[in-house]
């Protein structure tokens, strides 16, 4: 075996060792403060999570809450509404646009329990895809697609019950549909492994260049560690 070959084998063993330690660490990690995104009882570990549909919340009233131009109000739970609005009190240059808002209760006692720290900029549509992670965490992951005439990007939210929702990360990768930048969300697969939510895609994605044309395609994956609140692209 050549020196290069021996180095290669050593590197493989080193990787296996790291993965092994990580796997043991995941299995033996103590309970985390944030709800754990573990697979539900009936699901095999790392099984694919299928998006759920939330019913509309037609009675939602934005005015008493100081929100503007709300759209797509959905009944998130029995007493919470998920909606996408301009929040004039938060809107600043570089931090504006439709943002995810979670509202508890109904008028006149409704209150905003969460409003995303950043909005969708000049985008004028916000389309959520909601994944319910099931028991025991009861947490949900929302992929929020912002768009106008074409897709602008996807915000990823992690929402555990009785915890402040989190903007976990941003997916600024795209696919193409009918000559336009399109969302990769319809091609996303979401799985849970230990504390980690893994997001993959059934096709290669690209980042647009400055003029909007397609850059090189790549296989991209994302993970969110709910315990460490760590977002990673790989």
């Amino acid at each position, binding site marked *: 075996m050549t020196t290069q070959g021996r180095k290669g084998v050593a590197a493989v063993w080193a990787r296996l060792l790291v993965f092994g330690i990580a796997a043991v660490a995941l299995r033996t990690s103590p309970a985390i403060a944030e709800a754990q995104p573990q697979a539900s009882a009936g699901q095999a570990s790392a099984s694919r999570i299928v998006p759920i549909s939330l019913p509309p919340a037609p009675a939602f009233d934005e005015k008493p809450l100081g929100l503007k131009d709300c759209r*797509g109000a959905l009944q998130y739970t029995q007493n919470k509404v998920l909606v996408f609005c301009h929040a004039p009190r938060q809107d600043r240059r*570089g931090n504006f646009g439709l943002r995810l808002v979670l509202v508890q209760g109904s008028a006149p006692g409704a209150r905003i329990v969460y409003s995303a720290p950043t909005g969708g900029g000049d985008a004028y549509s916000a389309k959520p895809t909601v994944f319910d992670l099931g028991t025991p965490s009861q947490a949900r992951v929302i992929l929020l697609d912002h*768009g106008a005439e*074409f897709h*602008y990007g996807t915000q990823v939210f992690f929402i555990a019950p009785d915890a402040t929702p989190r903007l976990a990360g941003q997916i600024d990768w795209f696919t193409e549909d009918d000559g336009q*930048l399109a969302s990769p969300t319809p091609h996303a697969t979401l799985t849970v492994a230990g504390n980690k939510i893994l997001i993959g895609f059934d096709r290669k994605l690209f980042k647009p260049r400055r*003029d*909007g044309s*397609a850059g090189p395609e790549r296989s991209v994956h994302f993970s969110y560690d709910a315990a460490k609140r760590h977002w990673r692209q790989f």
Partner: protein
Amino acid sequence: MTDIYWPLQRNVIRGRSDHNTFGLVRRYANGALKPHQGWDFEAPLQTPVYAVAAGEVAFVRDRGDYGLQLCIEFEFAGRTLFAFYAHLSKVHVSEGARVSGNELVAASGESGNAAGMAVADQHVHFEIRTAKQPRLGLLDRVSPLTVFGKCPLHEAIPG
């Protein structure tokens, strides 16, 4: 010289904002520039929409973020161009039909990604394309200024 007409009876850029004109004029929340491929004309739902020039209907379709779309092929200054209208609610002409300049061809709407916008933001997205099926971003598109000669950014222009 081809006669050019405005697409609406009252033509003004949505919100009188340069973010709704052509070019690298839009921003994502992190400040990154994004292209806008045409002009957004303010148009409450069901506003009549007219052909900007005499030509032939290249396609009518309802798909994706643009929603209901109309594309008219026409000649301008020795070039073949395509007038593209999106987010429509109704199209009155069919693919392959000849249209006259200023002919009523469609009604504005909120199809595609424009659903549920506030009345002040309802609009017709309008592009001038140099190809029937353009590439991504600003490729195969030119500013509508090329054919109209002026942009109704601050004041409405009657059609």
